[in-house]
């Protein structure tokens, strides 16, 4: 609703005066047909706020003033019951805008940013700016490219200097419905951990908080369970590619779907998704990443390659012991139990995954986390678990980073 209303702000106030939103209570197939006829009428300027007509839920239509009586007559003639839901859209917009402005003001300072809450993209992005502004000698915002729908993609670079120092990459939110990952990533900036200082004397850290911004926005505006990108698939009415099946490692193999409507659709070819391509280009262009860590939810697992095959990697025992030790640190805080293993063995075979690609190009310390929980709330993890999740995850991440720092290669 927020997204829709933002678009409406650009329409002149006069046109919005006495625009109404009608709520239609569909009760039969005949009603559904009538509504479809209405929606398909290309001369109308009706704005349908909901799609997928069914008798299960009401349908809302924003009707401009000039069309109001015609539309109401049509509905009455077809015996379609309706109620006037919003009598005056303009008034609602003003109120909503005022509230957003005041919220934005409140969140402007780092001290008042509410880490124990889920935020929309705009708020996360503006907090990133606040972080950069308050730590100019440590943090810079790197614009790595734009998403499919042309939203900027930003990574935060933590660096105390040097030129192209060995670096560690951490990304969150590549699957947009895994909200605790973006929230934990941004909450990892809560407080300053002094032990990271020595690490930052030798290495840089890149933190990508929202790796799939289009998907993230969609989970706020339309479908909380959206996972993929929002790219258009030619020849299909289904959108989106699973960004973690789109990397060039066993691409198109078992564990990914060739059906564009599937949640694990791999896309037409490797790196077809601009979101993936942007990260690939940054990693390749930089040339000195020593670790790549991707954060997902849920299941409480710490995994290493491969996903595309169950064959062990050459570095399996080292990565397994690093993972086991990292998990020990994580568990020490709140007793949250994690398991360690390769993707293929511990969760499922999955081809075209990011950490398989990074491992194959020589980034030895490639890991993937699946954060809380184990299925009780799943993707809908309550906000009061964000900070504990972030805190325990940070301990695990820190262990890995320190290990990487102490084992240059």
């Amino acid at each position, binding site marked *: 609703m927020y997204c829709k209303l933002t678009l409406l702000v650009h329409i002149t106030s006069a046109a919005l005066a006495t625009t109404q939103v009608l709520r239609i209570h569909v009760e039969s197939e005949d009603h559904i047909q009538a509504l479809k006829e209405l929606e398909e009428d290309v001369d109308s300027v009706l704005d349908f*706020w*909901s799609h997928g007509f*069914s008798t299960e839920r009401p349908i809302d239509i924003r009707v401009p003033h000039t069309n109001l009586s015609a539309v109401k007559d049509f509905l009455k003639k077809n015996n379609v019951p309706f109620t006037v839901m919003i009598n005056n859209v303009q008034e609602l917009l003003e109120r909503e805008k005022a509230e957003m402005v005041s919220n934005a003001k409140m969140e402007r300072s780092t001290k008042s940013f509410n880490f124990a809450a889920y935020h929309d993209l705009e708020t996360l992005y503006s907090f990133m700016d606040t972080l950069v502004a308050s730590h100019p000698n440590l943090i810079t915002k790197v614009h790595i490219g734009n998403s499919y729908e042309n939203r900027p993609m930003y990574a935060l670079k933590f660096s105390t200097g040097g030129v192209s120092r060995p670096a560690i990459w951490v990304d969150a939110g590549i699957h947009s419905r895994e909200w605790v990952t973006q929230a934990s990533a941004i909450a990892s900036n809560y407080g300053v951990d002094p032990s990271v200082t020595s690490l930052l004397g030798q290495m840089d850290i890149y933190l990508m908080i929202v790796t799939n911004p289009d998907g993230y926005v969609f989970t706020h505006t339309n*479908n909380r*369970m959206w996972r993929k990108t929002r790219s258009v698939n030619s020849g299909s009415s289904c959108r989106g590619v699973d960004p973690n099946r789109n990397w060039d490692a066993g691409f198109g193999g078992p564990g990914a779907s060739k059906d564009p409507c599937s949640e694990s659709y791999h896309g037409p070819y490797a790196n077809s998704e601009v979101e993936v391509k942007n990260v690939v280009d940054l990693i390749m262009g930089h040339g000195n990443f020593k670790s790549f860590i991707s954060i997902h939810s849920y299941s409480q697992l710490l995994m290493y390659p491969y996903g595309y095959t169950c064959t062990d990697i050459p570095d399996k025992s080292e990565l397994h012991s690093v993972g086991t030790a990292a998990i020990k640190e994580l568990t020490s805080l709140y007793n949250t139990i994690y398991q360690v293993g390769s993707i293929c*063995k511990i969760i499922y075979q999955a081809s075209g995954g990011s950490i398989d690609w990074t491992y194959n190009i020589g980034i030895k310390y490639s890991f993937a986390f699946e954060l809380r929980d*184990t299925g009780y709330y799943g993707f809908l993890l309550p906000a009061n678990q964000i900070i504990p999740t972030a805190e325990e995850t940070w301990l695990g991440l820190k262990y890995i980073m320190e290990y990487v720092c102490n084992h240059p290669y």
Partner: protein
Amino acid sequence: MLCAHWSRLRRVSSRSCCATALRSTHSSTRLSSSPERIMKTFCSVWLLLSVVELSPAQEPPLACRGAAGPAPPQPETAEDMASTGDLEPTHYPARRAAQVALHYLNTRHGSPFRVFGLQQVHKASAEDVEAGGRKYKLDFSVTDWASGSAGPALRCSADVLFPRTERHSAPDVKLRCEALQQINRTVQEEEAFYQKHIPPDSAVSARDIPDSYGNMSEEMQPFWRLARVAASFIMLRESSENTEFNMVQMASVTQQESSEEQLMLEFVVLLHDLPSQEIVQWKLLASWSPDRGVRVLQTEWQPRCPHATKPPN
């Protein structure tokens, strides 16, 4: 009617589906009825638009587009994990079988105040059986999910048989948990909850529990748990070695008129299958009372529009 056409022709492009619909109305010798005329108009306009290609990204037809039934999970790959003999307890074959045993446990012992979750698999093994199927033997611990890993753990053992049939059939579970009778039965809470909602004027209804932000009120918790227990019947039935189900949301609950002193609840639940990452929607009717426990009376798979948009809250 339109919905039925779309759902039957899952992979056929919308254009040819529409053409089929047009052909079938043309061939009718009766005077076309109002819905048929509307559909004909709709189809003609739609075909015209798609020819003209007004917009590059055609959203799907608004009717639900879905398979003829729940999408079968991805077939197991050539790289099958050696799921015979002793199994690694932390790996997925053992865990999936344990989850199936958990679903079974919840159907039998779940309530508005108790839902069990898997704590840990201790030992697991699997073997092929003569009738053509695979039997898993499991040794695992469960906890009352609400108390988390802090709560007391119950030790269980189970035999889970996944049959190998042409069409999917439900796994068979034999389960033993020690001290099941001794765990604190939540009798008082159950009775109070029952008394509160059995009167004829009780008409509970709610949507999206928890909401997008994971919020769930105290009042809604027992309904959510009931949904989870009822969903366990479905998850148990639909499980195979290639699935791993969880309930991610109670999309809605609508109390129906009580019958035979049972609370009657209609749920719509969203299930998540881990291996395929698909979200599957089911509508179901369940009854509950402290004496009889949860019974599921009807289930109905619901096709989801690929771009399901929610009405503004």
